[in-house]
């Protein structure tokens, strides 16, 4: 006679696996599969509902698009920091490289949008390999500084190479389209980005559960022993930089497509820090964490905006000038608080909540 808790745990939260193949599945438990299905259905319902004018409007979709673009770029940083253990302060610069490559391809050569995204990613990956070369000799903090220097050099190049990038005026882009279908409405762009985000998430997951990902993790945990067991550290570090920069480049190209322009302000140092904040707040070494981190960090300024405009309406119209500083205070504070009190990030909180609800009606499962 099986007890209720056994049946329950078998059906809903079984973490028991009987082969390596099962252990490496993307959705290991039924719990995760159900949640993923719920997400897909929710997105589908939202999209269908807004076609009839119910629910989300264009502004909401714009914020959704921001989240998805940031997600694609942040996954790259997660692979670099969380899985390979290489710190980068130049992620926004890689995004800038991608955005400008895509913008130039579209405006100068009339290249289709989807192809320009791919080329932007490859271009950024090339830059990533160049930045990654010093990682053979330097690591940790020194590498951080090297990527910081790269960030400043790229910023300078974008602003001052007038003939190519048109300086601070930026490059105007036409409305992106996909095989003749216009992505002019944020809603259409959202669907496109959602599919891409799922695709890139899947790609990242596959990287982490394959030989490459295991090599990354070995390098992160102890590079000397990784070298001893026969992992070519230099090659995998370069690969990590290239993949990370590829994601950033794709994110940058999509971001330029979202804004219909490539402007230098979007790829400055503070944005690199914001990406770092996304990965740290989400939790290092967990792809799910990146999703939480990106949603959280992208929504914070939006909510602050709401709060400040509310106070400005009720109390003092001049209050809006505090918005910029308040954002900085909140971002800085978030990084500090998460590192001090929750080093595992939101994913740590999530795991605690999940473990509680997995066995929810019961205090624990009898083994």
């Amino acid at each position, binding site marked *: 006679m099986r007890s209720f808790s056994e049946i329950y745990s078998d059906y809903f939260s079984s973490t028991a696996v009987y082969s390596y193949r099962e252990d490496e599945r993307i959705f290991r438990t039924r719990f995760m599969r159900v949640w993923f299905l719920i997400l897909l259905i929710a997105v589908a319902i939202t999209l269908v509902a807004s076609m009839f004018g119910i629910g989300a409007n264009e502004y909401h979709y714009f914020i959704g698009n921001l989240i998805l673009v940031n997600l694609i770029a942040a996954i790259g940083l997660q692979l670099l920091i969380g899985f390979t253990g290489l710190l980068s302060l130049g992620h926004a610069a890689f995004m800038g490289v991608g955005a400008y490559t895509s913008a130039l391809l579209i405006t100068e050569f009339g290249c289709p949008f989807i192809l320009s995204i791919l080329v932007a990613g490859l271009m950024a990956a090339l830059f990533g390999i160049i930045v990654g070369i010093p990682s053979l*000799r330097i690591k940790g903090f020194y590498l951080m500084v090297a990527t910081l220097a790269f960030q*400043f050099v790229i910023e300078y190049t974008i602003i001052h190479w007038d003939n190519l990038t048109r300086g601070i005026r930026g490059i105007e882009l036409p409305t992106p389209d996909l095989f003749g279908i216009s992505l002019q409405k944020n809603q259409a762009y959202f669907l496109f980005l959602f599919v891409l985000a799922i695709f890139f998430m899947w790609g990242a997951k596959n990287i982490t559960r394959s030989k490459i990902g295991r090599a990354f993790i070995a390098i992160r945990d102890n590079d000397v022993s990784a070298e001893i067991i026969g992992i070519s550290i230099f090659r995998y570090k370069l690969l990590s930089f290239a993949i990370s920069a590829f994601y950033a480049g794709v994110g940058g190209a999509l971001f330029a497509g979202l804004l219909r322009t490539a402007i230098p302000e979007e790829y400055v140092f503070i944005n690199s820090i914001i990406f770092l904040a996304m990965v740290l707040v989400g939790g290092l070494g967990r792809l799910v964490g990146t999703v939480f981190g990106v949603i959280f960090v992208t929504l914070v300024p939006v909510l602050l905006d709401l709060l400040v405009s509310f106070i400005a309406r009720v109390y003092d119209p001049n209050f809006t000038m505090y918005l910029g500083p308040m954002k900085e205070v909140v971002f800085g504070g978030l990084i500090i608080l998460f590192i001090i009190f929750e080093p595992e990030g939101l994913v740590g909180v999530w795991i605690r909540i999940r473990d509680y609800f997995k066995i929810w009606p019961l205090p624990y499962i009898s083994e």
Partner: protein
Amino acid sequence: MIDLVQTLGSGILVGLVYALLGLCIVIIFKASEAFNFAIGEFLILGSFLFYVLFFNETLPWHRALPLGALIFLFFSYVLFFDISARFLIALPSGLVTGFLIFCVLFFGLNLPSLVPSPLLRFIIAFPLGLLAAGIVGSMVERITIKPLLGRSPISMTIVTLGLGFFLRGCIQLIWGSHAYPFFLDLPDITIEMGDFLFLSDPIWAGILSLLTFGLVIVFLFRTRWGLAIRATSEDQAKAMAFGINARFILLIVWAISALCIAVAGIMISNFGALQVGMGFVGLRAIPVVLIGGMDSIGGALVGGVIVGMCEALAGAYLEPMGLIGFKDVAPYILLLIVLFIRPYGLFGTVRIERV
């Protein structure tokens, strides 16, 4: 030729200020293996604290009161938990300190009317401003760095990144982001010899920075406290075994660092005006310490002078060739080259890790 000497001379004078910034980074790195990315914000903060005292800048009550309350909470906390004073001593002394700070911020110190002579006023306000900066530095260390003791140095470094943004936002909320005119009115010591002209302000900056640099070195190498700091940076565990309070040492190091950064900040503000956007100058310390070596105090001096000269040369010879603003990136390009050739800097400890 005259042009070159003139450029190099000006570069060296600015470079001495950068050397001071580098020193602040180096002593923190030696003590805790963490890099202080918030240096630019400490620089502005120190300058603002000095500005408040020197120019009698006051704040409206809704900004002064929270700051006073913050100081009160912090002082009571440190006295009660860290120094374990009695509750009846800790609370009132915190209250008094907070009230004093509130009074200074709200009513002002009225130094300009009390002391008419600018030089005397500078001599009074300078140490007071530095003291305030040192206290803020120790405050920041207690709140953000101390909880991280025992964790990896990289997490401390990332915390300082967040700290930079936090402090910058706070400064903007308190003092706004517009420029404040900054004129110290120090005695004119402009050197004019034949074709050379060195202005008074950079010379003062060089002299005061060098003086501070020297004082810090004397403190580190000729006093008991300095010995304790050096022992702690050599090996924290062993120093603690010998009875040195390593946590307190970290507090002192951060206070000294914030103090020196304030000196550099006041000198840099004196070149023009004081505003929040000036913080990027602080990041110039990164090439300085990486060129000199992260854990070498003498290296900071050499690195600072090299970066100052490099910047001046780029400004004088490369910018007219159409590379506008190249002055600001030239040190970083130099840094990249140094990282490729000698990652541990010119004088840093060579750590051989061949993986």
